[in-house]
C-alpha cells in the first residue's frame, strides 16, 4: 500500500514537471502560432479565393488558382529557375565549404582571420550586398570584367545576357552562404574526438582515408542540417533578384524569375492575393517535400551500417 502511494506520488511529481514545461513553453508556442502558423493557414485558405487585398469582396474560386498556375508560363519558368538556382547554390556552397572547413580546422595563426573573412558576407545585409554585386557585374565599369581584361579575356555581360544572368546570381548566392556553411562544418569537425583520428593515423590511414572514413561519416548530421537549411533558404531567394532586375541596367526579369519574386509580383504588384497564396502554398509543399526526402535519405544511410 505504502509502495503504491510512493509510486503515485512519483507519477504526479513527474507529471507536474512535464506540466510546468508545457506551461513555460506556452507563450513561445502561442507567439509561434500567431506569427507563423496562422499566416500559413490564412495563406492556404486565401489560395481558394480571388482577392485584390483592397476590395471587401472576396469570391470563392475553389481550385481555380491552382489550375491557373499549371498553365502559367511565368510560374513554370520561376519553378525551373528556382530549382536550378537552389540545387546549384546548395551543391556548390556545400562542396566548397566542406574542404575549406577541413583546411581551416588545422591549427594555424591565420585560421581565425580567414574564418572572419569568409563569414563577413553572411552578416552583411542583402540589399547593399546586391547593389555592390550589381556594380561588380557591370559590363562597362565592373571589377569582374576589369579582372578578365587583365588576363586578356573579353568582357562578359553578366547581368544583361539572359543565358548568364542566372549563373551570376548563383555565384553571388554561393559567396553569401559559403561562410555560414563553413562555420557549421568547422564546429562539427572540432567536435570529432581527436582520438579517432589519432588512432587512424597510428593504423597508417592517409589524410584522405581519415576524412572519408571518419570525418565525413561523423559530420553527417551537420551535413544534413546544412543541406536542409541551405535548400530552404535557396528556394526562398528574393532580395538579390529584386535588386538585380531593378532599373534599366539590370538583368532581364525572365532570365532570373524565381518563385518568391513571382509570388511578390502577383501579390503586391498585380494585387492577386489568392493566386499568390496558391503559389506560396506550392512553394511550401516543395520545400517540405525536399526536406522530408533529405531526412529520409540521411536516416536510411544511418540505418544501413546497423
Amino acid at each position, binding site marked *: 500500500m505504502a509502495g503504491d502511494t510512493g509510486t503515485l506520488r512519483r507519477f504526479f511529481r513527474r507529471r507536474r514537471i512535464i506540466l510546468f514545461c508545457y506551461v513555460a513553453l506556452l507563450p513561445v508556442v502561442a507567439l509561434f502560432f500567431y506569427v507563423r502558423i496562422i499566416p500559413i493557414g490564412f495563406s492556404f485558405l486565401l489560395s481558394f479565393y480571388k482577392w*485584390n*487585398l*483592397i*476590395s*471587401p469582396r472576396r469570391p470563392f474560386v475553389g481550385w481555380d488558382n491552382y489550375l491557373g498556375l499549371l498553365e502559367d508560363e*511565368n510560374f513554370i519558368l520561376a519553378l525551373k529557375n528556382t530549382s536550378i538556382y537552389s540545387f546549384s547554390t546548395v551543391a556548390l556552397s556545400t562542396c566548397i565549404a566542406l574542404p575549406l572547413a577541413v583546411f581551416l580546422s588545422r591549427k594555424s595563426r591565420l585560421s581565425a582571420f580567414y574564418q572572419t573573412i569568409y563569414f563577413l558576407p553572411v552578416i552583411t545585409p542583402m540589399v547593399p550586398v546586391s547593389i555592390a554585386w550589381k556594380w561588380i557585374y557591370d*559590363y*562597362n565599369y565592373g571589377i569582374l570584367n576589369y579582372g578578365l581584361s587583365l588576363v586578356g579575356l573579353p*568582357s562578359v*555581360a553578366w*547581368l*544583361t545576357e*539572359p543565358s548568364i544572368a542566372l549563373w551570376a546570381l548563383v555565384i553571388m548566392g554561393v559567396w553569401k552562404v559559403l561562410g555560414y556553411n563553413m562555420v557549421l562544418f568547422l564546429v562539427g569537425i572540432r567536435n570529432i574526438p581527436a582520438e579517432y583520428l589519432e588512432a587512424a593515423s597510428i593504423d597508417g590511414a592517409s589524410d584522405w582515408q581519415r576524412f572519408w572514413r571518419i570525418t565525413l561519416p561523423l559530420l553527417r548530421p551537420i551535413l544534413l542540417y546544412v543541406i536542409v537549411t541551405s535548400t530552404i533558404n535557396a528556394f526562398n531567394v528574393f532580395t538579390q533578384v529584386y535588386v538585380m*532586375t*531593378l*532599373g*534599366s*541596367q*539590370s*538583368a*532581364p*526579369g*525572365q*532570365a532570373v*524569375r524565381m518563385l518568391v519574386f513571382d509570388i511578390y*509580383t502577383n501579390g*503586391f*504588384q*498585380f*494585387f*492577386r492575393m489568392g493566386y499568390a497564396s496558391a503559389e506560396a502554398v506550392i512553394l511550401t509543399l516543395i520545400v517540405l517535400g525536399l526536406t522530408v526526402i533529405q531526412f529520409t535519405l540521411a536516416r536510411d544511410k544511418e540505418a544501413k551500417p546497423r
Partner: protein
Amino acid sequence: MTQTQIGRRSAMGLAAGAGLAMAAGRKAKAADITLNIWTGYPELVPWYKAMGAEYTKAKGTQINILSTSLREHEQKLAAAVPTGTGPDVFDVGQILGITFIEAGLVKPNPAAVDGLLKSAAYRKSSAEQFTTDGKTYGLPMLFSTPAMFWNKAHFKEAGLDGPPKTFQQKMDYAKKLTKFDATGKMTRSGMSLRLSGQGSGIAEKFRFILEPAGGTLIVPNGKGKFHQGYDNDAGRAALKYYIDAVQIDKVDDPKVQHDAAAFVAGNTSMLMREAWVIGEIKEKAPNLDYGVAPIPAWGSGPHKTLLQHNGLWVNAKSKNIDAAYDFMLFISSKEASVKLTQLSGWVAARADVDWSPLLKDIPQYKEFVSPTDGVQFYPEPVMAAWNEIESRLADRLPGAYIDASLQDPAKLAAFIKAAAAQTDQILKQNDLYGT
C-alpha cells in the same frame, strides 16, 4: 443595400463637411488636427514640406509627411487604407486609385473639389481621367508626358542641325551618333531604349513607338470592354524598330549604360523620358547642352505621346476628412503648382498656370508644360488590370529585342501574336474582354 447606406452616409458627411468648411471658428479647431500625408515620390517631399509649413501657418493644422519608394508606398496603401490605418491624404497613380474607388475607400469629391476639377483649371483629358461613372474622385497632381531629350553637342559633332521629326529619321541620326571603340565595343549609344530589367516600364516604353506607329495595347469596344490592339502591322513595326536598333543598325546595346543616367553622363545622344530628367541634369550635369523635342512621328503620322496622371486622394476612412479635402485644395492652387515643378522637376497637372518664369529659367520645360501644337496624347487606361497587362508584355520584350531569330518576319509575327493573345487572356480573367 450596403452600398445605399454608404452612399447616404457619405452624402451626409459631405454635406456636413461643406457646412463645416464655411463655418466660422474653423481655424481654431484646425489647430488641434494633424493630417498624415503619404507619398510614393521622395522627390516631392521638399514641396510637401514647404506646402505643409504654409498650411500650418495659415490654418494651424499640423502636417506629417511619410515618403517611401513608389512600390513600397503602393503596398503600404493597399494594406493600410482598407484597415483604417492609412493616411488622410495620399498620392498614387490612377491604376491603384480606381481600385480604392471600386472598394469605396475613396468617396466622390465634395462640391468644391468637383467644381475645381471641372473648371478651366484642368484639361478636359485630366478631368475625364478622374471621373468614374459620372462622378469625380481625387484631383490630378502630376501631368506626366514623355518627350525626346537630345544632346546638342553630340548632334553638332555628327553634323546634324536639329532633332529628328520621324522615327525613321531618328534611326538614321542614331547611326551617325553611335560610337564604338577600337575593339568594336559600343561606347555611346545613338538612342537609349529600354532593353532590359523587369516591370511595366519596359512595355510603357515600347508604347512610345507602338502608339505613333498606329497600334495600342488595348482597344475599347465602346461597351466597357477591351481587346488587344497590337497584333497588327503597327505592333510588328514597333518590335522590328527595336530589333533593328539593337541587332541590325546597332545604335543601342543592352550592355551599355541606359536611361537618364546615360543621358546625363553623355553616354547616349537621344532619350525619350519625362520632365524629371531635367531635374537630374540640373543637379548632376548643369553644363550639359541639350534640347527637348516632341516624340517623333511615325512617317507622315501625328506626333503622339503618353499621358499619365498621378492623383491626390483623400482616404474615405480619414477622421479629418474636411481638413483633408481643404489641404488637397490648398496644395492644388496655381502657386503651389509652380512650386511643385520648381522643387521636384515633375510637371503639375493644372493647365491654367503661368509657366513663363519657369521657362525663362529652364526653357527645356516647354515641351512638357505646353507641348507643341498637334501633339496627340494617348492616356493610360484606368483599370486595375493595366499593370498586369503591361508587366506581362514587359516580361517577353527584353528577350525578343536580342533574339536573332526574330529578324525573320514570320517569327516576329508569331511572337507578337502570342504576346497579344496573353493580353486578351488577362482581359478575360478580369472580365474585361470584348470585341
